[in-house]
């Protein structure tokens, strides 16, 4: 296989793996946070507003690790820096 094909294959496989493995952790974390928040809301319904707001912010922050993986796989597919070396050199 020539170098162009090799780089393309590696990029596509790795970008798939990146998003697949990278979303496991945030998914577990978000599920745990949501479960805890539901628990807290069931025990203290009066605090539901505060809990919901903090939960949303927290979920968005936990999710950002998955978003980093997503950005990495986007870079690998659409803006791979190694293309320049392979095609130019």
């Amino acid at each position, binding site marked *: 296989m020539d170098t162009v094909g090799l780089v393309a294959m590696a990029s596509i496989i790795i970008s798939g793996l990146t998003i697949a493995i990278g979303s496991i952790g945030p998914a577990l974390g978000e599920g745990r946070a949501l479960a805890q928040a539901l628990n807290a809301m069931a025990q203290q319904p009066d605090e539901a507003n505060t809990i919901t707001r903090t939960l*949303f912010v927290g979920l*968005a922050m936990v999710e*950002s690790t998955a*978003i980093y993986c997503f950005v990495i796989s*986007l870079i690998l597919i659409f803006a791979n820096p190694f293309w320049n070396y392979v095609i130019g050199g």
Partner: protein
Amino acid sequence: MEITPDQIVYWEWGVVTLNATLVFSWVVMGLLAVGSRLVTRNLTSGPEIPRWQNVLELIVSRIRDQIAEASGGRPDRYLPFVGTLFLFIVTCNVLDAVPGFKAPTASLTTTAALATCVFVAVPVFGIARRGLGDYLRQYVRPAPLMLPFHVIGELSRTLALAVRLFGNITSGSLIVAIVLSIAPLFFPVVMQALGLLIGVIQAYVFAILALVYIASAERAHQQETTDSASAT
């Protein structure tokens, strides 16, 4: 398929290019400026207030309440900066649902610029409040060994701020584009609605994080130990 609105170039002359990010940023800026100018042109404090003045008062007072709640008092100090960030981002993200509009926040340049504003604003607020020496001393607290970690933390949280907003908005519009090509009947509307929710939440998160960073740079010594915990 364009992954960022930077790639849509409307006009080019030498090194000056006019891409979709720039154009739609100007659209949002014009919309916000002209809209609030039109509304605030004839303000009244009587019992009968115009409809749009009511809307604007609601937005501003809600933002003030949120800032006061998150920073513990004195919302007017942060309102201009944090409120502007929130309003700009939320307008960009919500208008993304309009066909033909490309959200400027789906481009890494816009979000990096916004994150740089926060990066600069943190020491400005901190020095204005505590003085230069006192502000710089927090970097070598509790020991000078911590200096590189403080610096790295400051840089990496700026990067995280930019990439978080960019990734969320880009993934929203990208998912809609992909779903549109495989199941174009009903499903894209659901994803679009989810994108609206995520856009508003991300605008809120961006503003709240900017506020937290600024407030932690301003904070007095006794809570210094919690600084590093909230920095990441």
